[in-house]
Each structure stands twice: as structure tokens, then as C-alpha cells.
């Protein structure tokens, strides 16, 4: 059975404003629907039903006026423009009391870090400039630069250094760290089956063709077909026999 809109609203314990808000309708229109001055627009019926969590059929399209309620009066349409309403000015805000915290004093410039100074020295060496030349270029002394300005300057100098072609670095020649030359020599001797003549610490000699070697020993095949491994610690020196003395296989 359909009920009056205002009755349903009161059952749900919500205000007119809340219903208008939920349904997305103007408050005045809700009041007109509730007073029966206007029947509910079918387009609004579903909205109101959803807002009240009821079926559409539950809502009476034309509500009965609430008993004891005064009829809703419309405000008469003014024919003359109303006098300008003077809106009282809000009281001027009270001046804020000065907080106890003192006004921040501008910080003194932060001096550059020691690491920045050291970096600058290195960069100046790389670009072959003196501090005086750099100051002349900047137009002010370096001591006037704070940390931030110093950082910018260092970035600029670093870019200059990177743009400068560096001379080829001279690396130390340290054949003592490798044994590649002897290995190369023995490899060639092995490939060519050269006959090597070894002089050992005990005064003896060994002749043979290299069949293998390691950092600590050399294995040779002697002319009589025997394979001899000589510890390098036992070798004084060795040399390649001239090819004309090579035994024919």
C-alpha cells in the first residue's frame, strides 16, 4: 500500500535535506512533494525510492498534507527589485600576535667542503690552470663562493676536463709479472720441433725437442726417443740448436 512521502521519510528517520541530498533533488521540490502541492514527477520517483530504500510503488504520487501542518506558502514574486542588502562586513581580523619565535635571520653562506677544495685542485691541474687564472676568469675570488656555487663551478670544470683529450697513459712495463716471453719462445720451439740444448745445474746437458712445458718444467724428447722432464729449477740456460744440426726424423 502506497504511503505519503513524508511518512516514509519519517519512518526512515532522515531529514528533508538528507533525502534531497540522497535523491539529488532540490529541498524545495521535496517539500512541495511532501505537502501535496505537487505530485511526484515519475522521473523523480525512482530516485526517491532508492533514497528511501523502498519500492517505487510504496510511494504515493500525491502525498496527503501532514495533519496540522501549515500549507506551504510560496514567496510572492517581487515586482520591484529589492533594496540592496547590506551585508555587514565581517569584523576585521585581529592582528596576529607576534610569535615568540624570532624572525629567521638569513644564513651566512656555507663555505665549500674540504673535499670540494681538493677536487678543485685536481681539476685545475688537469686543465693546467692556476687558482689566480680561474679567479680572473670568474671575475671574483674563490673565497666569495659558497658551497652551492662551488659545486656548480666544479661541475663546469669537470665538463671541461672531460672535453679535453687525455694523452695516452704510460703504463709501467712489468714483464716480471708474467712469463709470457719464455712461454712464447717454448711454444714456437715446440711447433717447429726445434732441438734445444739445456745446461743443467749439475753441469750435465740435455738435448731434446720440446713436447710440453709448464711454468715449472719442460718435457723434451731426446734424440734417442726418450722423454725427459727437466725441472726449471735445475736449468741454468738453454739455446736452440741451429737447424742444420737437427736430426733427420
Amino acid at each position, binding site marked *: 500500500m502506497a504511503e505519503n512521502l513524508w511518512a516514509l521519510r519519517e519512518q526512515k528517520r532522515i531529514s528533508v535535506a538528507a533525502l534531497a541530498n540522497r535523491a539529488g533533488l532540490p529541498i524545495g521540490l521535496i517539500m512541495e512533494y511532501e505537502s501535496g502541492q505537487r505530485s511526484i514527477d515519475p522521473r523523480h520517483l525512482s530516485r526517491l525510492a532508492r533514497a528511501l530504500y523502498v519500492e517505487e510503488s510504496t510511494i504515493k504520487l500525491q502525498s496527503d498534507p501532514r495533519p496540522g501542518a501549515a500549507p506551504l506558502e510560496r514567496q510572492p514574486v517581487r515586482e520591484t527589485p529589492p533594496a540592496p542588502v547590506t551585508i555587514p562586513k565581517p569584523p576585521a581580523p585581529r592582528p596576529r600576535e607576534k610569535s615568540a619565535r624570532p624572525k629567521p635571520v638569513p644564513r651566512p653562506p656555507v663555505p665549500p667542503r674540504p673535499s670540494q677544495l681538493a677536487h678543485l685542485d685536481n681539476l685545475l691541474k688537469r686543465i693546467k690552470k692556476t687558482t689566480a687564472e680561474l679567479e680572473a676568469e670568474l671575475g671574483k675570488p674563490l673565497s666569495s663562493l659558497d658551497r652551492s656555487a662551488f659545486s656548480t663551478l666544479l661541475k663546469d670544470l669537470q665538463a671541461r676536463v672531460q672535453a679535453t683529450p687525455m694523452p695516452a697513459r*704510460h*703504463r*709501467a*712495463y*712489468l*714483464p*716480471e*709479472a*708474467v*712469463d*709470457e*716471453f*719464455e712461454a712464447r*719462445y717454448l711454444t714456437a720451439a715446440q711447433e717447429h720441433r726445434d732441438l734445444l740444448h739445456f*745446461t743443467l*745445474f749439475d*753441469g750435465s746437458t740435455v738435448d731434446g725437442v720440446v713436447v710440453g712445458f709448464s*711454468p715449472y718444467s719442460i718435457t723434451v724428447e731426446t734424440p734417442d726417443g726418450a722423454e725427459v722432464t727437466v725441472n*726449471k*729449477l735445475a*736449468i*741454468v*740456460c*738453454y*739455446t*736452440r*740448436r*741451429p737447424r742444420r744440426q737437427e736430426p733427420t726424423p
Partner: protein
Amino acid sequence: MSLGDYLRLLRAKRQGITPWEIEAATELPKGLYRQLEQRYRAMGDDDVIRMLADFYGVPFAELRWRFDWPRKALSRTLMAMSLRQEPLTLHLWNGQVVTGTVMWWDLGALALDVGAEEPLIVQRHAVERWSPRLPNVGHPADEADADDADDPDEDEIEE
């Protein structure tokens, strides 16, 4: 032959007794014997050399003079003479004396052009002495690096 190489030879003659066993048998600090053998510069002092001479049963002087001819000094001379292409005289372990210009040299050996058809390959540990002896010479730019860099296990000291 440097003191380090000679100690290695003496140890090999003792059927390869370990450095730790030698340190235990003498009063050498832990790790020093390995440094004496493997480092290219002269390590130790007269007291250490005396201890080792007693251990191996060899004359003190036999070890002491080798202390003044370390591998590092030979490297410097080889580097200088190869750059200058001047002749170098080597006194070898077996009494042989050879003179020639340095063709190449590395960790274990050097090639000497002795005027023959083929170069003579000399094992570095067989070099007893050499002349001229050039203290601390070589490529000036390389000296600082060479001093530190050709010691392969400079930092590997046994704990």
C-alpha cells in the same frame, strides 16, 4: 741467484720441507720464511739469515751475499739494459760467464743476444751476479710503479 731462490733450492734439496715446518724448527716469525722465498725484494736481516744458515747447515756468508743481489735489483738492471741496448754480463750458477744484450725478460727467464745464431735463454734463478750493477735505475716513469707492482703477492701474508 737471489737469497729467495737459493732458499727455495735448499728447501727442495731437503725433500720439500714446508715453510711452516722451517718456521717451527727455527724462531722465525710466522709467515716470514714464505716472504723470504717469494718476495722479490730483500727480506729479513742478518739474524734471520744466521738462523737459516744454522738450519740448513750452510755458511752464513753463503746466504749473506745473496741477500745483496735480490730479484728486484736484477729486474732493474734488465730493464735499464734492455732500454739502452747495452751489453750485460751475467755470472751464472755453473761458473759460466755470458755477455750479451737483453732481448726480452720476464718472470722466469731472459733472452740474451750473445752474438751467436740463436739467443741464449737464461733462467733468472741461475744468475748469481751481474755487471754493470745499476742500483735503482730503469725507466724513470716506471720506477715508482715497478717497485710495488711486480711483487705479485705483496699483500698475501700468511696469518
